[in-house]
């Protein structure tokens, strides 16, 4: 009984600034706390809305775009280079093949989102697991092996690695995703490792070990939750970054190829006619910036929400 009181008082000291006593459920409480901090900044909500719109368009693009068939091998030369904001059939004008730019942009959202989803979907599990394993076996050969191996892939900036790998292999969207993932996973390994390795000697880990919990249980149930905050923060900030890299790669020609309606590819294709016909270049660029801005704001908001006030 007395211990409970002491724990109460301890928690009271920690919560003193927020004037609380121990709430009903710690998890719900912390989620509420995070949401409050997230909401605090209206820009974060803006970012969330943009992200939702983007994902929606990525999934349902074909149903929203006025001319979905323009996304691929289509040409209608008489209609080429109509100016934007002039006709209702082609609200944002057409490109050099006569394809509706608005439709292609909407379809293009999918490729950007796909890039982020695939890359993060690959790098997060691989990176986090590596970090956990390395952190758990801290200061053994396992640790050194994993972390130094991951160092190899961060010896160059991710864009450079992606460019060269895509250049060596065939330049396709899939290869671009693989290439970026290769250069990306070490960051997650590192961040997990940093947050976990210092905990390995703590009492609660030792207690788990004594109780006979197997390694995986310790790693995932005990260690992982502590690193989850920074991981999620980084992941949310990374979405924008990966999309940016993806667009850059396709812009240079080392990513998705024409006639794929990838936003970067569209900008590259339009450059030939730039600057006299500005819209095939400027409009997809704005679209890319829009997406990235949204995810950046979202990521910022998540970061602020998960920030511990210490």
């Amino acid at each position, binding site marked *: 009984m007395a211990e409970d009181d002491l724990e109460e008082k301890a928690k009271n000291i920690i919560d003193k600034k927020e004037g609380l006593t121990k709430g009903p459920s710690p998890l719900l409480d912390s989620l509420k706390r995070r949401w409050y901090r997230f909401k605090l900044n209206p820009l974060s909500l803006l970012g969330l809305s943009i992200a939702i719109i983007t994902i929606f368009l990525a999934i349902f693009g074909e149903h929203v775009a006025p001319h979905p068939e323009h996304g691929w091998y289509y040409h209608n030369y008489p209609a080429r280079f109509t100016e934007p904001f002039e006709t209702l059939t082609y609200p944002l004008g057409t490109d050099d093949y006569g394809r509706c730019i608005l439709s292609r942009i909407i379809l293009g959202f999918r490729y950007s989102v796909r890039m982020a989803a695939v890359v993060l979907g690959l790098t997060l599990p691989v990176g986090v697991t590596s970090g956990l394993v390395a952190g758990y076996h801290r200061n053994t050969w396992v640790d050194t092996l994993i972390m*130094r191996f991951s160092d*190899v892939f*961060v*010896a160059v900036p991710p864009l450079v690695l992606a460019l060269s*790998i895509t250049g*060596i292999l065939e330049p396709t969207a899939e290869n671009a995703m693989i290439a970026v993932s290769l250069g990306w996973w070490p960051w997650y390994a590192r961040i997990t490792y940093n947050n976990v390795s210092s905990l390995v000697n703590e009492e609660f880990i030792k207690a788990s070990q004594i109780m006979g919990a197997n390694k995986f249980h310790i790693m995932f149930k005990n260690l992982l939750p502590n690193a989850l905050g920074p991981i999620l923060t980084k992941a949310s900030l990374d979405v924008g970054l990966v999309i940016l890299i993806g667009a850059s790669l396709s812009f*240079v020609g*080392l990513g998705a190829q024409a006639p794929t309606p990838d936003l970067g590819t569209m900008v590259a294709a339009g450059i030939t006619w730039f600057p006299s016909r500005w819209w095939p270049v400027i409009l997809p660029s704005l679209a890319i910036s829009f997406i990235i801005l949204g995810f950046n704001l979202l990521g910022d908001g998540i970061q602020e929400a998960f920030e511990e006030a210490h």
Partner: protein
Amino acid sequence: MNMKKYIGKRVFWGLLALFGLSIFIFYLARILPGDPVLMMVDPRTPETTIEQLRRSLGLHRPIYLQYFYWLGDVLVGDFGYSIYSRQSLTIDIKNYLPQSLELIAAAGLIQIVGASFIGISAGTNINKWQDHLGRLFAYVACSIPPFVWAIFLQFVFAYHLGLFPSTGALSGGYSAPPGPTGFITIDSLIHGRIGTLINYLHHLVMPALALSFLGMAQGARIFRTGMSRIKEKAYIRMSRAYGISKRKTQYKYMLRPGCIPAITVLGMQIAIMLGNAFLVEWVFRWPGFSRFAIRALLDSDLNAAVAIVVIIGFMFFVLNLIVDIIVAYIDPRIRYERE
């Protein structure tokens, strides 16, 4: 644990990682299906000549031996033969790398100055106009990809306003000085060709700006967050309690802890610029290494790909080392904790 040991460790592991990377890229380039020799020659060349070529390039050897030969060559500076440019890669590198370095250096400088100025004034004046303006800029700048910035700058300032030249490094009528270093800025000073220097700088402004915005935005954000968090810390409030003035507190006591995350980020951003330079050079047709690299990659020039990775990897390594040294100097905990 003092600085030397710390640096030593970093150098050792960094170089080791670089080696690992070179092995990886080398193997990747070599194990691809497709015969590089065939790509280089006219298809009508007789088989014997092709064999000879193959032998002379060392492609008949097993891959690991090829790697060691290659490594040996690289260490003396020979990067092999470029399919794209049809000459020794080393010559290409010598021609193009200095310009890239100048571009990156200029962009880096702009970035550091801009980020610290915007970020610190935003962080120490939260919710006032400096903050709002700074954050607005930061959000905009880091959401717009560098190549979009490049296009945009080109469009507005070169095409419409005609203030700056839109492509290239030197206008017609100016030529690069035959200087010793290959760096146009230095060489033109050495030869006293001030006109060339000015023309060059004139061309340099826009690409450097375009390249710097992304990093500047990130840097400014980190400065701002850092400074605003530091402001709340107990030891800063205590130093005010002792009577130390706001200004002194800011410059002396807040700057150091506030800088640390910023320096890491700025270093990282400059390194990322090594990558983004590719895009900016591409748009502005800047005669730099990155532009050369992209064209080589598009042509599947494998030797070039490997060389690119290794060279940029090395520059990255040096950069990271410098950043780590600076941080270790400022924050004593890093030095001591590495025990």
